[in-house]
């Protein structure tokens, strides 16, 4: 059976243009197969959560989409362009844990980096850049924090700063890598609420190992463990979980019952 590729049937009716197209993607590190025959189409207006165990290839998938590593086989297009060109349409939000907390930098400085691709070397940031910086900071609710040092902010606020920076690139799609890692439940919930609002005008792709959080907010879920099982709904089926995590998963992770639908009939036929 092959359920890794689905399209059509999208909840957001008016949108149809394809933002990211991944076809027959294979990635190996040395001998180890990390991604096997991945197919995924991300359409405008989508809000997709990719979940899966650590080491299941989530980060590798992101790196390939961002053009940081090149696949052995397969094709990725972003708005019809190869990744190294098309990635300028991506607003990338990395994990906050990888940053040096003591780095001396203000909130506005970080967000201004989102304007880098819009300004050439030797060209300084201008008035328009400052307007965008203020606008996106207001959007994430940090308008009054622009001149603060990043180190003064809490984890949730810092995550918002990186989302603002991604928005400052004026992206077609936001890519978020474990946006709620190390954040407590309330902070995570408000963050997902913010993403939900942003989804009204920007497509979103999230990777996370937090099944319950992701599946309660996103429009559709994919399960990735070397292979991708993707449904155009946010129903995580027990079969998807079994294939992704192995059969003992339900004892290990808490999945809200209402999102754990039985495997639906229409997903069977190919």
């Amino acid at each position: 059976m092959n359920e890794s590729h689905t399209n059509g049937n999208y909840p957001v009716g008016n949108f149809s243009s394809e933002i990211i197209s991944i076809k027959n993607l294979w990635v190996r590190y040395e001998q180890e197969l990390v991604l096997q025959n991945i197919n995924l189409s991300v359409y405008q207006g989508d809000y997709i959560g990719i979940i899966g165990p650590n080491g299941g290839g989530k980060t590798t998938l992101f790196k390939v989409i961002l053009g940081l590593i090149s696949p052995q086989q397969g094709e990725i297009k972003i708005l019809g362009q190869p990744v190294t060109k098309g990635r300028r349409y991506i607003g990338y939000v990395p994990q906050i844990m990888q940053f040096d907390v003591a780095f001396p930098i203000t909130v506005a400085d970080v967000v201004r980096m989102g304007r880098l691709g819009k300004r050439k070397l030797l060209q300084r940031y201008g008035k328009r850049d400052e307007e965008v910086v203020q606008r996106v900071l207001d959007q994430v609710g940090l308008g009054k924090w622009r001149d603060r040092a990043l180190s003064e902010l809490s984890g949730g606020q810092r995550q918002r700063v990186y989302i603002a920076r991604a928005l400052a690139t004026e992206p077609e799609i936001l890519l978020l890598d474990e946006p709620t890692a190390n954040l407590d439940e309330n902070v995570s919930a408000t963050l997902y609420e913010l993403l939900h609002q942003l989804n009204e005008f920007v497509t979103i792709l999230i990777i996370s190992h937090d099944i319950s959080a992701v599946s309660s907010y996103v429009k559709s879920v994919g399960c990735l463990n070397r292979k991708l099982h993707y449904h155009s709904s946010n129903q995580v089926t027990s079969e998807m979980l079994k294939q992704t995590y192995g059969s003992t998963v339900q004892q290990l992770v808490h999945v809200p019952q209402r999102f754990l639908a039985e495997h639906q009939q229409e997903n069977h036929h190919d």
Partner: protein
Amino acid sequence: MIEALQYEFFRNALIAGFLVSIAGGIIGSLVVVNRIVFVAGGIAHAAYGGVGMGFFFGFNPVLGALGFSIFSALLMGAVQRNKNLRRDTAIGMLWAIGMAIGVILTDLTPGYKAELESYLFGSILAVPTTNLWIMLAIDLVILVLIYLFYKEFLAISFDETFAIVRNLPVNQIYLLLMGIIALAVAMMMQVVGLILVIALLAMPAALSAQFVKDLKAMMALGTVLSFLFITVGLGISYTFNLTSGATIILVSAIAYLITLIFKPAIKFLKS
């Protein structure tokens, strides 16, 4: 110390200290936030190869150090970018090879070699006026490059992956940074010596980082602190007849320790 100002050598020393502080505060900040103090140390030691060449071929050893440090900095930059190498090992090797070349070349140079020690431990009290002009020129080059590429240097220092995704020429910017570090290192060598360069690069900047909220301010405060430490160190070394480079480093170290101890108190008073 005041009466010492009537001597030209002492005035030159203060001017040298000032010029070195500008490069040290700016480049030290970049070295510290990029966590490449070890690489800067490697460049400083490899530069000794250039000093040896200057002695052997009979040109200004400062220019030899300058050329050699730029060459080794670019090599180390390339090594740093190569994810397949054991980077710290490669840099340690370049560090030692550069020094070895310097030692062998001075062995092969006939004549009196007392001046050598001044490159190892610094000789701020013996900086000739020509070298002051070289230092001023290096400062200007550094200031112009930092002014022109500030947003790129900040971007690759803070989040290189994001800079790559924004299609910045990250490798070229990194090599440019390494080149500027080499300029600063070759210049600071004359004041504190190549062995102590990393301390003068790292300490004022690390200290300044605790009190500022952005990189520009870190550079500015780093420069001020560096000049302060050099001047105080110079005064003490003159008064007690101690080696100036080492005295400057210990003054910086004591200041750093004091802030480590009193910073919680300062923070408390601020709030």
